[in-house]
């Protein structure tokens, strides 16, 4: 199973956590589309401890037990 964790404003698309069945060639983008989250509302994607810009991360393929964190634009300090 793949675990997807959602934070702050984008929890409206699925709550805190959503589980997905693994499929071959499944990408982060497919999961985001399945959740119906507009891509422009996602600013940070962390897949199995790795992060980069969303446009790079969206095309990453997930593994059977992947953990994905999805965050909207945020800042603080």
């Amino acid at each position, binding site marked *: 199973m793949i675990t997807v964790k959602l934070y702050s404003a984008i929890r409206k698309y699925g709550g805190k956590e959503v589980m997905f069945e693994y499929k071959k060639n499944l990408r982060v983008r497919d999961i985001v589309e399945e959740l119906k989250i507009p891509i422009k509302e996602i600013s*940070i994607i962390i897949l199995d401890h790795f992060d980069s810009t969303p446009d790079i991360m969206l095309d990453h393929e997930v593994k059977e037990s992947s953990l994905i*964190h999805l965050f*909207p634009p945020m*800042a*603080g*300090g």
Partner: protein
Amino acid sequence: MFGYMGKLLRINLTDQSVKVEDLDFELAKKYVGGRGLGTKILFDEIDPKIDALSPENKLIFINGPLTGTPTPTGGRYMVVTKSPLSGTIASSNSGGTWGARLKYAGYDGIIVEGKAKNPIYININEDVVELLDAKDLWGKTVGDTTDILKDTKKTNVLTIGPAGEKLSKIAAIMNDKDRAAGRSGVGAVMGSKLLKAIVVTGNLKVSLADPDSVKAYVKDANLKIKENPVTGQGLPAYGTAVLVNVINANGILPTNNFQEGVFANAEDISGETLAEKYLVRKDPCHRCTIGCGRYTKTDKVEGGGPEYETIWAFGADCGVKNLETIIEANWWCNQLGIDTISAGSTLAAAMELKQKGLLDHIDFEGHDLEFGNDDAIVYWTKKLANREGFGDEMADGSYRLCNRYGRADLSMTVKKLEIPAYDPRGVQGHGLNYATSNRGGCHVRGYMISPEILGLPTKLERLDLKDKPFWTKTFQDLTAFIDSIGLCLFTSFALGAAEYADIYNSVVGTKWTADDVLKAGERIYTLEKQFNLAAGILPEEDTLPPRLLIEPMPSGPTEGHVHHLDQLLPEYYDLRGWDSEGIPTAEKLKDLGL
């Protein structure tokens, strides 16, 4: 003279004299105001080697030219002095309304000198400035003092609490009850002068060079702030604590005194949980169109905060998952006038000392300082601020506490100032900023978390070293400018150097470019470095706690990494025009007009 009020108040507490001096406009333009101008005045007027708690130290409250203007977040002021905690330059920034009110009373700043014979407070009502007996206020909390002294809507109160009176080297200066010039122990300097409070009343206006342009730029900036998803949505909805989960998901949320980088209960102390369970309303500062400030309520307390850094310090860093208790600890810090970051981090250091068996002789009075014991954080925060029992050993911060037990290495500090809520092992640029920050371990001297974690203004790989010295220097210089004009650093999530130049020009009447903005910031940064060198701060103090340099992160997304300061510092110094030891070259000083 536009933007500036053109007057400084000089108050000598030893001889009780009050003088009004004209502001040197050319000096003000060169050093901008706030942090820059305050540092210049302090450096010119004191020997940086003096004891920070002696009457020879001066305490400068100073605004920027944009403080009190209609510009977005235009309400910030700076406290500039020599720090009793670090021995470096101290410049602590605060919001609320007090700074703007000082402008409305007719003054760009106040220079406080000497030491009073008995506790006093200063009452300023435009041209009338009085030094009044504060005997009955001494010992009172920030809330009680403020309630007693605030008598009209056009009055704002700045005060210390018991921690400042007792010369805790991590004491804060508080204004408008919940706003803090928190860091570097500035509250102890005020306490050492027996100055309890400064009350300001005023209704004057700040003149603007080009009111129509100001109006247009403010409209444009406010639109950008509103349309930006960070400043227009994230910060207003969740406050700064929205960061808890993203910092934890990157494995850099310092846990149990930086022994780990992932806190299993992060969700329990997150901005989302804060908003769901305890948030009453937003609590914006003067002229703020963002509104990240929180006003929260639990069964026990009600008031401003907590911020992200506070939640981390008393939460993950102490292994505590009870947000209600963290809110209570924050409330007591505000009431007693103490820096939440240094207080929480000092408790965490004590917990590790105890974990290692070094405090077996201490009477913990039934409230054991152990990681995860939420009961201990409120109890010992109060004891720390009041210097009672073991609290007295913690009252001067974690460095002096750990050093007393021969384990200074367990103090997570740079230049004796506690480093905040991001483990440098997983954010290489931010670690460089901590090591080179002129006031010691500080996240808001060059907030590299923006590009390295949040992707603002562009995403940098957090573990890479490439280009990090350039970015760190640029962030530090821009921040020095923002801190000097009187705006909030958070505007930089939506605005850039060119936009700051436009707004500054429209208020002051200059024709600065983005390059001028960065050059002014660089001048201020280098001046601070010069102050530190003259104060006896050694070049090798540009470093990080050994744990972060040699102990690989044990687990999580940052597992196996250390901070590579030795690889970053040479390029950073080179970019600054400083020599290989971090000393500004004569050529660079000349270039900056220093």
